[in-house]
């Protein structure tokens, strides 16, 4: 390897050496340095999160009325999403143009203008600077100089696009249109779980003690699902032998993994041969947990969809969740879980959604392990200088597949990642 110094801690490797981090041009060997290198993290902030990507900011229904706002993050950069007087959604960086203080501190609210607490500079719903305290000084003394123009000091804009009630943002004016970015397969699968305006059922946030990409990979990894999450196997909620498949978008970054219960094809022999069966005597005292309704009329009981870089859209039976990944430094990330249903949910369907929320989230029967497994990798990074992980299940490319015994969508993630990062 010429000149590369993978594994060096922060600041010891210039951007020019980054090409050497990867051993080859393929997708099957991921250098461990991507999970703990400060230079790479800085480059992600610049090239991914402020580059030509669409990032989930929230749901349209979170800011229904003019003046409603929500604070959130694009990558790890604080932003505000607001509905203007004209009903149009706007977003901008949550940072006063004066001294750089956070402008908006509440998670949600309604306001006519955003006023910084520090020196009372205020901004309208378009992020334009509309007021500067003592701009003309006090009694003719002080004040801003003649060269100061309010119109030069607006908030940095985030471009907005809405699809099926999901609000995406991009700092890059030149980003391609959202539907082109996603491709038709992903767009169709988003509409599938958001066929009408959603209603928020609640929030929680899971703090992961690992690099954000370990979670992005985890959600693109159907290989682990029935092995790490024994609840799946034990109760036959999901098995790799079920009918289903993986769709990987053309750019690699987005994916859908789906499966449908099909008792006729359930064949346990592969599981028994690999000794992956949990205690077969294990039954539920409250089997209603496993009830569900085919609410989208297609037999699909599980759909995990990702949009590069930070969205996961989840259907586990009738539990529907928008998950936003928020990097919090090189070795920590938050996952914001926004659970939703629909206005016309009947009582039984609402009960199913609440009951099935036991499957997901930080205490979820089939997801709690995902909170820990990334940290198991993060804690083992010290010995990985120059080493790579092995991502070869299901081949070497990032194509869509009928089998879910594959890591094709993880390879897709790295395809999109390497392309945007130019490494």
């Amino acid at each position, binding site marked *: 390897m010429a000149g590369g110094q993978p594994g060096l801690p922060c600041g010891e490797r210039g951007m020019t050496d980054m090409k050497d981090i990867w051993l080859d041009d393929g997708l099957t060997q991921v250098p461990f340095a991507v999970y703990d290198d400060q230079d790479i993290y800085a480059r992600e902030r610049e090239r991914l999160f402020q580059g030509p990507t669409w990032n989930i900011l929230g749901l349209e229904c979170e800011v229904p009325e003019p003046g409603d706002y929500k604070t959130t993050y694009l990558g790890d950069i604080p932003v505000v999403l607001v509905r203007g007087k004209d009903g149009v959604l706007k977003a901008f960086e949550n940072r006063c143009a004066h001294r750089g203080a956070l402008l908006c501190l509440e*998670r949600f609210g309604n306001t006519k203008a955003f006023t910084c607490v520090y020196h009372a500079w205020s901004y309208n719903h378009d992020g334009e600077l509309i007021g500067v305290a003592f701009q003309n000084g006090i009694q003719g003394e002080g004040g801003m100089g003649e060269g100061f123009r309010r119109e030069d000091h607006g908030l940095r804009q985030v471009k907005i696009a809405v699809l099926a009630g999901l609000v995406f943002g991009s700092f890059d004016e030149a980003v391609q249109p959202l539907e082109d970015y996603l491709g038709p397969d992903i767009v169709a699968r988003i509409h599938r779980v958001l066929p009408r305006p959603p209603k*928020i*059922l*609640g*929030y*929680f*946030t*899971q*703090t*992961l*003690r690992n690099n954000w990409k370990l979670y992005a990979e985890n959600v693109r990894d159907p290989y682990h699902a029935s092995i*790490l999450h*024994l*609840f799946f196997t*034990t109760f036959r909620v999901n098995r790799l032998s079920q009918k289903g498949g993986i769709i990987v978008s053309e750019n690699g970054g987005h994916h859908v993994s789906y499966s449908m219960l099909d008792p006729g094809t359930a064949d346990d022999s592969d599981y028994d041969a690999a000794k992956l069966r*949990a*205690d077969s005597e*294990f039954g*539920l*005292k*409250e089997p209603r*947990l496993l009830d569900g309704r085919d609410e989208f009329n297609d037999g699909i009981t599980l759909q995990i969809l990702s949009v590069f870089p930070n969205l996961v859209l989840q259907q586990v039976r009738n539990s529907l969740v928008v998950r936003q990944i928020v990097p919090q430094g090189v070795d920590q990330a*938050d996952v914001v879980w926004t*659970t939703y249903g629909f206005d016309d949910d009947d009582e039984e369907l*609402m009960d199913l*959604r*609440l*009951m099935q*929320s*036991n499957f997901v*989230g*930080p*205490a979820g*029967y089939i997801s*709690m*392990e995902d*909170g*820990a497994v990334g*940290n198991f990798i993060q804690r083992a990074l010290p010995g990985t200088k120059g080493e790579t992980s092995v991502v070869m299940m299901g081949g070497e490319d990032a194509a869509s597949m009928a089998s879910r015994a594959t890591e094709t969508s993880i390879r897709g993630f790295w395809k999109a990642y390497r392309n945007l990062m130019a490494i």
Partner: protein
Amino acid sequence: MPPDNNPIGIVSGLLADYAHCIDSDELERWPDFFTEQARYRITTTFNHERGLPVGIIDAKNRNMLEDRVAALRKANIYEPQRYRHIISVVRITGESGGLVQAEAGFIVVRTMIDGRQELFVSGRYLDSIDLSGQRAVFTEKLVVLDSDKIDTLLAIPL
């Protein structure tokens, strides 16, 4: 010593036993603190104040608590860890027909097997307790966490 009929005393004793059961890893006894039809739910202050119904754990009866314990013992994978509950003085917030409503603040320190130790959660118990029988039992236990954030995972109940 005469039996303590003061509801504050009874509820305090119940909460002390409850915390001891969880903190000493006697989870098989944990469902016994609840009536058959008891609701046990963990939520956050943010959701609670807005009436948002989704729970981090949402058990509609004691059978679901038994399932939770069985899953923790047999199916779920998590690093060995222990809790230490510290529970505040109890407030009685309502009383009728043998049921009392009580509120108590708590913090839980989580200790991992390698010694890592952190304040895991703080919050309050909003409890409804049946005092009419031989021993006090929860008919409802709503666990309202102060923060929205859960570090890594919540395996053992609160």
